[in-house]
């Protein structure tokens, strides 16, 4: 009769079958890669696992991981959001000027305003993409430059320093709870919310449906335009929060804050197993992708590789991840074709 799921596993349980199962779970292979990388680097330089360097690692990965959450939602729908780095830049400086011009303003209010501002900028993307019918790549490439240009014009060479920001706010980036920085806790909580939301809720499943087959999603009665618009609004709001946290982490903000991080975020997401062709991947995988990239760049630093190599490595990893995804998808398609030929 038809090969059942169990049989398929059994027939493939030769030496390579184990590898197959492993490759199929991107999260597991990422954890393994991170573990190997950490072990090797620690063997070469034991300071790699010191509490201070671990804390730095967590802080470094946190803001990228946060942005990865928004980007995952976008890439799941076969879209892309390049403008996040510029939104981070604007909202980081906005948060700084709020503290500067209104001493004594509660930190929560500042964060809320930053999120709102991000949401607003995301909504501009959303309107252009969902109702203006402009491809996301073009729209967000345009707004990447428009938002950054507006930021430069507004900031005009000024700078916000840590002295202008209250210590209680900076504590988000310095204080720890159970050994983990507050900043990382915030990201972890959001990660759980996103993971559950994308997995268990109707809206979350619709993002997957749109990405795996847009036409089928329309026929299934999903309001695709509205979903896409919501996605870009979410991505903007996340970038707004990331902007506020950027200020908390670094203290000093000028017009260049966040420039270029969109590449790191997209690379992390795709390395984390969210297929650029949409419909496949999880936020947990994507955040692990961010962690892998972060560990990798710390490794390069610890092995005294010049920092100029960083970007080339990142590009190579993105290309590798895309190629791997395409290969896995192709093999999956081949396999299901063989299975159907029995019928």
């Amino acid at each position: 009769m038809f090969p059942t799921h169990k049989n398929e596993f059994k027939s493939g349980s030769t030496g390579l079958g184990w590898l197959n199962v492993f490759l199929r779970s991107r999260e597991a292979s990422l954890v393994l890669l991170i573990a190997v990388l950490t072990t090797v680097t620690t063997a070469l330089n034991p300071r790699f696992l010191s509490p201070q360097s671990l804390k730095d690692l967590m802080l470094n990965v946190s803001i990228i991981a946060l942005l990865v959450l928004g980007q995952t939602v976008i890439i799941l729908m076969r879209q892309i959001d390049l403008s996040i780095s510029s939104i981070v830049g604007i909202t980081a400086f906005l948060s700084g000027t709020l503290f500067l011009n209104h001493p004594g303003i509660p930190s929560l209010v500042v964060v809320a305003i930053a999120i709102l501002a991000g949401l607003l900028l995301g909504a501009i993307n959303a309107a252009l993409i969902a109702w203006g019918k402009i491809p996301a790549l073009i729209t967000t490439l345009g707004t990447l430059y428009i938002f950054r240009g507006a930021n430069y014009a507004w900031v005009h060479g000024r700078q916000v320093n840590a002295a202008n920001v209250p210590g209680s706010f900076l504590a988000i980036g310095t204080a720890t709870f159970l050994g983990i920085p507050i900043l990382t806790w915030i990201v972890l909580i959001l990660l759980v919310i996103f993971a559950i939301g994308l997995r268990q809720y109707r809206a979350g499943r619709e993002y997957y449906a749109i990405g795996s087959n847009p036409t089928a999603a329309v026929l299934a009665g999903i309001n695709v335009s509205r979903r896409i618009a919501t996605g870009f609004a979410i991505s903007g709001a996340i970038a707004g929060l990331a902007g506020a946290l950027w200020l908390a982490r670094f203290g000093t903000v000028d017009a260049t804050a966040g420039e270029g991080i969109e590449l790191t975020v997209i690379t992390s997401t795709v390395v984390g197993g969210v297929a650029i062709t949409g419909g496949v991947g999880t936020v947990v995988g994507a955040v692990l992708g961010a962690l892998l990239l972060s560990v990798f760049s710390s490794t390069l630093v610890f092995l005294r590789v010049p920092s100029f190599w960083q970007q080339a490595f990142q590009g190579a990893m993105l290309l590798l991840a895309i190629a791997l995804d395409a290969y896995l998808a192709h093999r999956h398609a081949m396999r299901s074709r063989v299975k159907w030929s029995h019928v």
Partner: protein
Amino acid sequence: MSQNQTGTSTRRLARRVSWETMLAGLLAIAILGGALVNRDFLTVENWSNLLANFVEIALMALPLSLIVITGEIDLSVASILGLSSSLLGLLWEAKVAMPLAILLCLLLGAAAGALNGFLIVRFRLPSLAVTIGTLALLRGFAYILLGDKAVADFPPEYTAFGIGVIPFTFIPMPFALFIILAVVFWILLHHTTVGRRLYAIGGNQTAALFSGVDLKRLKMLLFIASGAISALAGIVYTFRFSSSRADNGTGFELSAIAAVFLGGVTVQGGKGTVTGVVLSLLLIGIINNVLTLADVANEILRIVTGSLLIASILLPNLIASTRERWRVRQRLREIAKFGAASTAK
């Protein structure tokens, strides 16, 4: 009935006013406006300045428009420019003869384009994702080659090419290079079978494949051409500013892509002309020049280029959807009239 006829005739008129005509009109308005706003605008020096200032972007936009016509995209052009500029600096510092260094840069550009083409054609990966990857990778290579230093002392006979004009005209020498290439691309796209095939690929990839178009080879060649010409743009940039740095031309892909779309090449592929792209390049060049003459800050120029990119797609979309809505309403009115007539019977 008569209303219907006027409707079709306006529609026919709207169809006859091509995108190129509209661009030419805008260009005339921009030149007129520039001349009125600024007395320095219509001077010979300003025009040679204006043309020289966008020559790199113009060079990159030519193969890029052909790539977009086939339904793909190349975001890595500016990184190839930076890589070629860095290699040129490095080779010159290592006392390599300049003609050989230029040749090596062009070869490197072609190789970078071949890498894009190989990943896209051979592995059938989406060009958008691949070229975002090579955007980072190739810029990374530029940093590996040159780090944060700059090479500046290029031989005067070459920098003279970068900043000189053709004798007795205001046309900068690098711009002559662009004119030659534009003519080559114009002939290629509009007067050869290769051009017809490119449109066929963009119109319907499967149909093109079944009618015997070797689309893998064509796409591969396009990406190689894009790499080589982007490298050429890098060489021009290096000589024009007599400076080789790893971050040369960062962000130029935005302007090149904006020019292509503003030139009437559609995102879906299959449409667009070289004339349109050349007109839109001139238009962007003039707008930038007028704003620079008016002492508008650099960051505003970024906003303008970004807005032009978005507007170049938003406007045709809005026009098309209004036209569609109008057509549907017309049809509904006809149906209602027909229904009324049949019930009257």
